[in-house]
């Protein structure tokens, strides 16, 4: 791999250009200098090589967590979805720009094509007629109905039910057409369907207990670009090219998901070439500088939907006052956190949405690191320093704990930096970190924390609906279901969220969400620090991967990957 290419990828990563695939389609990506041996010297070689005529070779994807759940409708974690994207299909998928691309559906139902009615209640989905399950059985509208019914079956331990519960009166019109009625209009539903991978009716309908399908779990059958081969527990999962795939590709014979639990070892195996691609967590920031110098490897920082925040429990007296939250934001040295602790990789952010989202508001006030202003704000609001330097107001001391996952050394460093920053303005922060199973259990969900350092993807897939995190009706501590753990309560935000979720008109939704971001920036229930960047590592000759901020993992388009010759 030449330096030319590495630089180009670097520019792309900085977000200055569209994604690599589109760039290539525009013809800008062609041509790179290639050392072709001592006699020929440097030659310009067409880089956008074409995929092979028949599937060739294998790709080993390294993961630091192990995929274990192979029924996509059951409770699972992100890492399992990398397998789903390649073994199963959804009605449609999302591209990096946030557009839906038909997958099992023949077209995306919209207001324009009559797929969704004006009021958002009547849905009509047309399906492809050329899709076959891996065992040869044709895929039909009955399968779609079976899946929607299964998710809503009270006996079935479905992973996510949000959105699907609204689907009523499902009617199979023909093998390629299905209709249903929504209980009320719910704009994020197309996004939810984009990650609802469908399972075969003919293999699962006979199970008396929908949770007990050992045959299917051990040998899952889907409609994706790859078929199941085997799983060696604790080691790897092997998939093979499906010749009857209805979409593009696949171009490799085998796709292997290899489990390497330790991140340092994962990186080492990428270095020695045992792994072709580092998925999900990517290369740790401390290895970034070294990874860039590796021969024949393309190392790219890729923006992610996750935003790193300080979450305040606004139910506590100390955080009730907006002036406190604002002052703490002024006293937060974002630049040092990003540059000194995160090796300058992530980008600062003011919103809970990533800039790649269509609803992102680019006009929010920019954060300023200003200790004087912070002190002034606190003094004006009546918080005066006590004898030990810690400010207090009406008997409430400006002292609180900050918690995050114990053992995350990078975050611990950031906490120490914050502790110093905030001490300077008379706020005392105590660090109290907990193991993950404790931290993100009731401690977080029921708002028992004081302040927390947390990375969250607030979106529903590509959809900006964040009702679960910001609506006053989503406060878990008040007995509601939802993840509004900061106990943020703003009637105007509630109204905007309601407005955004109940219309399917994208322009109207955009207005609502942009306005809402102004409120969250002003009220600061979360202090947004930065948008996460993952350092993706790929072998030089592996082509076709594209980062996608709208999905939780990065094997979403592995059906188009291939080895350049």
């Amino acid at each position, binding site marked *: 791999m030449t330096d030319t290419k590495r630089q180009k990828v670097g520019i792309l990563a900085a977000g200055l250009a569209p994604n690599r695939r589109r760039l290539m389609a525009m013809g800008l990506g062609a041509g790179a200098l290639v050392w072709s041996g001592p006699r020929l010297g440097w030659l310009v070689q067409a880089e956008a090589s074409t995929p092979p005529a028949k599937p060739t070779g*294998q790709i080993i994807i390294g993961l630091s967590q*192990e995929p*274990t*759940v192979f029924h996509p409708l059951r*409770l699972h*974690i*992100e890492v399992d979805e990398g397998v789903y994207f390649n073994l199963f299909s959804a009605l449609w998928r999302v591209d990096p720009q946030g557009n839906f691309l038909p997958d099992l559906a023949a077209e995306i139902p919209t207001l324009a094509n009559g797929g969704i009615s004006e009021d958002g209640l009547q849905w009509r989905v047309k399906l492809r007629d050329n899709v076959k399950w891996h065992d040869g059985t044709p895929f039909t509208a009955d399968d779609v109905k079976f899946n929607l019914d299964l998710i809503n079956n009270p006996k079935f*331990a*479905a*992973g*996510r*039910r*949000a959105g699907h519960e609204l689907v009523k009166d499902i009617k199979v019109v023909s093998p390629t057409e299905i209709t249903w009625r929504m209980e009320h209009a719910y704009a994020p539903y197309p996004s*939810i369907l984009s*990650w609802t991978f469908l399972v075969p009716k003919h293999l699962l309908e006979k199970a008396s207990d929908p*949770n007990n399908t*050992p045959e299917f*779990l051990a040998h899952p059958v889907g409609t994706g670009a790859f078929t199941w081969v085997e799983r*060696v*527990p*604790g*080691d*790897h999962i092997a998939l093979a090219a499906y010749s009857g795939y209805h979409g593009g590709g696949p171009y490799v014979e*085998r796709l*292997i998901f*290899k*489990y*390497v*639990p*330790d991140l*340092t*070892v994962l990186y*080492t*195996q990428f*270095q*020695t070439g*045992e792994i072709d691609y580092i998925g999900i967590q990517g290369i740790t920031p401390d290895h970034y500088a070294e990874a860039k110098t590796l021969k024949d490897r393309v190392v790219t920082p890729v923006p992610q*939907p996750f935003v790193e925040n300080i979450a305040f429990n606004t139910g506590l007296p100390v955080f009730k006052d907006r002036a406190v939250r604002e002052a703490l934001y002024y006293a937060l040295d974002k630049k040092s956190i990003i540059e000194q602790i995160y090796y300058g990789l992530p980008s600062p952010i003011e919103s809970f949405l990533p800039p790649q989202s269509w609803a992102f508001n680019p006009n929010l006030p920019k954060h300023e690191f200003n200790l004087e202003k912070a002190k002034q704000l606190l003094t004006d609001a009546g918080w005066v320093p006590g004898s030990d330097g810690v400010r207090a107001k009406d008997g409430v001391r400006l002292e609180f704990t900050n918690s995050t996952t114990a053992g995350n050394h990078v975050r611990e460093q950031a906490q120490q930096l914050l502790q110093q920053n905030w001490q300077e303005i008379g706020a005392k922060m105590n660090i109290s970190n*907990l*193991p*993950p*199973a*404790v*931290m*993100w*259990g009731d*401690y977080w*969900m029921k708002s028992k924390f004081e302040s927390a350092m*947390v*990375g*969250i*993807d*607030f*979106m*529903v*897939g590509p959809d900006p609906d964040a009702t679960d995190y910001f609506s006053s009706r989503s406060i878990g501590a008040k007995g509601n*279901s*939802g*993840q509004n753990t900061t106990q943020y309560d703003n009637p105007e935000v509630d109204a905007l969220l309601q407005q955004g979720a109940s219309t399917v008109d994208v322009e109207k939704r955009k207005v609502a969400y942009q306005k809402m971001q102004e409120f969250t920036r002003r009220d600061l229930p979360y202090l947004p620090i930065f948008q996460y960047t993952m350092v993706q590592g790929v072998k030089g000759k592996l082509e076709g991967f594209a980062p996608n901020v709208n999905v*939780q993992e990065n094997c979403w388009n592995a059906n188009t990957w291939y080895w350049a010759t």
Partner: protein
Amino acid sequence: MARYLLVRILQSLVLLVLVSLIGFAVLHLAPGGPLAQFALIPGMSQADIARIAAQMGLDRPLPIQYWEWFSRLLIGDWGHSYRDSQPVLAVISAHLPATLELMISALFIAVVLGVWIGVMGAVRRYSVFDSLATIGAMIALSIPTFWFGLVVIYLFSVKLGWLPAGSRFTIGDGSFLDYVHHLIGPALVLALVEVAIWSRYMRASMLDAISQDYIRTAQAKGLPRRIVLLRHALRNALLPMITLAGLELPTLLGGALVTETVFTWPGMGRLFLDSLSYRDYPVVMGLLTFSALLVLFGNLLADLCCALADPRIRLT
């Protein structure tokens, strides 16, 4: 003898129940649970989590949960993993071969080398060899396995390219030589500590045997030194090693937590760590019961073997 066996087995059963009870309590008393990891997954609502907890039976009182687990165990049902829904015994047996392969090879190296170093050290007490072996054993015992494993990978995989950087075999290859090639690194790292342990025990035991009266008698009778050492001293010195081997049995099947993690070895140690971090209660409980069984069985076996090897020991 039969009576002795019966009593021992009954004692073991009582111990097993106690171990599982304590294990279950400690596991559930630790805050957090199997569902906490799902809290931050985008699109998961609190209602979903509460519903799943009820479906998994995690909201019931602990004694009831324990009784259910235990009564099923009695009829041979070890339960199903929360992670991949496979039967616990199937999960355990899927990880056993990797661990057996690694531990047997490491232990083989350790026993052969350890016994030899121990005997040589005892015979030539305070010689240069003995001092070097002692210092070496101390160093080997104090080097953290994690660090040593990474050094081996860095040196032999990254820098020299002689050994693969972990894994049990190359996916798509899997020939015998490929397995052996992958085994060298982790087996050596693991053997290093084991050699140290075995050589120290062997040296102490051999020294003890050499100073016995019957050795002096044998030497006085004019028997060759070799015969005296190998036939008289070594045989007696090996007796405590049987007990040591019995105690090693659970380690042998329990796997090596650190080495397996560093070398991406899909064995029992990794299974234990993973199940613990995912709070996969059925698998953790299964592993706990399994290793408790091994400890009890290993001890019993060692006692029986000692009695067989040494007629002076009577089991009553």
